[in-house]
């Protein structure tokens, strides 16, 4: 038993940290530190910087551009990325559809899509949830009917993150209406420029637009755009959702938030002292730091087990990472809100992120509102509790 990182891993941490600091546009870094939105260009540029370095898709098999790093190194890479902070990789390509394509796709799909995902030549979005299918995803109704050598897709997807930027969407569609719920679903790749697709933005309570509804009205999709076998899409979706847990804890990001809270709470005055010297505030922050430390260690246990015993089925214990990770992220937005005091109130539509000095307060309440999502998405925390109860405790 040894919780310390090896010399090589420590050196690796230094290497990635230096690379991130030296190669990330300071303007983008500042936007992230202050909680402003980053633009499409910010993300694409950063992904291409990583790709040039060979770090675009570290966790992929080396033949498709992966780095072959150990689980511990992958962990360090992500933590440093979040701590910098640098733009997080858009998950829909590198974490979701990419692994599905290299695991279940055909040669043509691999050759065409994988390099374009790594270089972010295509912006991907995810077509899973529907208005009537949230936690009960397998009840989805969007259909794809065979017609000659095409699929005709009809239906509606929702909560489609950043669909407004997307070139492609990967969709779960019902291809066998007579089969049992899970067994009549296929995994289909659809060009967002296709005729019959309408994207309608959903404004969230923070005032932002990051999710959308996507409507499919007799959309014609080439037959070869199906991944793997027809009616096996549910298996691929489960595989994809399992991979999603890898980075769900967001430990590095929460560390960066704590740094920011301490920074701001040292400036904001509460009486004749900075807020950070208020014992009650300090204790609340310390309590969250302890929660985060426990989460970090728990994540390291999951990572170490994976490194040692191989990546098999996702560890059901990783549901803890989702639950605690999201709770901590939410608590930190709450503490940030407390730091802001009355200056949380003014509503300022998000500009270009180049806000003037002294405008640090404007993104804080919106972020707090927005972050209620983290205990809802990716399998709500209640679903995670169901997973623990069933898969771990055998209830």
């Amino acid at each position, binding site marked *: *038993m*040894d*919780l*310390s*990182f*090896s010399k090589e*891993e420590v050196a690796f941490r230094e290497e990635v940290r230096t690379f991130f600091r030296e190669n990330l546009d300071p303007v983008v870094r500042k936007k992230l530190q202050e909680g402003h939105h980053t633009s499409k260009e910010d993300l694409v540029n950063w992904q291409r910087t990583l790709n040039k370095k060979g770090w675009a898709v570290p966790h992929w098999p080396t033949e498709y551009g992966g780095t072959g790093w150990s689980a*511990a190194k992958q962990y360090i890479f992500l933590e440093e990325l979040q701590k910098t902070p640098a733009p997080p990789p858009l998950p829909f390509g590198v974490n979701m559809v990419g692994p599905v394509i290299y695991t279940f796709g055909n040669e043509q799909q691999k050759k065409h899509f994988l390099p374009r995902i790594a270089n972010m030549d295509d912006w991907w979005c995810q077509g899973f949830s529907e208005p009537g299918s949230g936690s009960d995803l397998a009840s989805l109704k969007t259909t794809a009917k065979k017609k000659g050598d095409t699929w005709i897709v009809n239906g509606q997807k929702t909560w489609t993150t950043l669909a407004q930027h997307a070139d492609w969407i990967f969709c779960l569609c019902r291809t066998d209406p007579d089969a049992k719920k899970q067994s009549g679903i296929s995994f289909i790749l659809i060009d967002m420029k296709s005729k019959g697709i309408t994207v309608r933005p959903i404004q969230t309570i923070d005032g932002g637009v990051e999710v959308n509804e996507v409507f499919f009205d007799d959309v014609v999709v080439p037959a070869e755009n199906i991944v793997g076998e027809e009616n096996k899409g549910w298996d691929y979706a489960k595989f994809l959702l399992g991979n999603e847990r890898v980075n769900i804890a967001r430990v590095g990001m929460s*560390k960066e938030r*704590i*740094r920011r809270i*301490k920074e701001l709470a040292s400036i904001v005055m509460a009486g004749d002292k900075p807020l950070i010297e208020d*014992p009650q505030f*300090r*204790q609340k*922050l*310390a*309590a969250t*730091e*302890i*929660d*985060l*430390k*426990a*989460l970090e*260690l*728990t994540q*390291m*246990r999951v*990572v*170490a*087990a994976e*490194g*040692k015993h191989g990546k098999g089925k996702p560890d059901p*214990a990783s*549901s*803890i990472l989702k*639950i*605690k990770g999201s709770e901590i992220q939410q608590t930190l937005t709450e503490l940030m809100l407390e730091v802001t005091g009355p200056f949380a109130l003014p509503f300022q539509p998000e500009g270009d992120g180049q806000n003037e000095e002294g405008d640090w307060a404007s993104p804080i309440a919106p972020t707090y509102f927005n972050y209620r999502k983290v205990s809802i998405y990716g399998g709500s925390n*209640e679903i*995670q*509790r*169901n997973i*623990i*109860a*069933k898969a*771990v*405790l*055998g*209830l």
Partner: protein
Amino acid sequence: MDFDLSEEQRLLKDSVDGLLKASYDFESRKKYRAEQGGYSKTIWGKFAEQGLLGLPFSEDDGGFGAGPIETMIVMEALGRNLVIEPYLDTVVLGGGFLRRASAEQRAAHLPGIIDGSKTFAFAQVERDSRYDLGDIKTTAKKSGAGYTLSGEKFVVGHGDTADTLIVTARSAGGQRDAKGAGVFLVPADAKGVDIRGYETQDGSRAADIKFDNVEVGADAVIGDAENGLAIVEQVVDDGRIALCAEAVGAMEEALKVSVEYIKERKQFGVAIGSFQALQHRAADMFTALETARSMSFLASMASSFTDLAERAKTVAAAKVQIGRSARFVGQSGVQLHGGVGVTMEYRIGHYFKRLTMIEQQFGDADFHLRRVAAAGGITE
């Protein structure tokens, strides 16, 4: 980064688990409690035979030179089985002081601990000291080559059966001064020592002890009579680390018996474990247990930190997590059991009680949270 036990550590775990499985079921524990002194000398003898009592001491001192992970393994097992024998008091605390004591003191006392013939108790708590280790009214007045101790100590774990008491007393300074605190070895049968023993809430024993002009020699002082607080802090941190591991073991078993119970217990024609309200509580208990386990690992690792401030802060953070998790798991275990959870007959209530008392020892969650906050947090 590796969280697996080594081959030797696994063997140790198997042997402790094996011993306790064979001899420490719920009914046996009741009998041990009723024995003279409130625990089983036979079990203590078996601990000695298996080498558990010599685990943390160097081979030169006749021990096995094992590290903090080995102690963690033992403490978790003791927690799982609600063991009431004085391992914490004698091996972890008593042994903790002796490991930092002079060669003569080690030679005089360690063989007795290792072979199981002698036990120790740590007399630290005073009427007004609460969790402040440096808050000491008991005095140690210089007298000839030695010292004369006077004062009162409370809730001394296994204080009524220990052969030797390790007593904090003030040789200089005011009640709460860091300087002036010393640590003294006092034979329990020394003249002027008055011991009143009693049962504790969790089935173990403790004692309130009066010291009335108790004479000890110069060889009774561990370290420096005026600068003993640093040792006390380190040894108490050893104790906290051990309690964290014990709590993890107790929580693990509390969750296990609770899940077993709700799988068996039927209401409305079905096992109550099929109800989501209960499933979610059980899932939250699992989360509380595993986050506590992570912090217990970290605390055990911190045991070998050379930066003592960092060591203390890490242990404090672990005790916060353990305190919160233990409270939740204990209370929830009782809740899942329903009415039988508050009866003496069922095991869960006993786990709940032990977990509750661990929180009251060497600082509760709020006490340690204040320490972590005062130190500026623990995020690097």
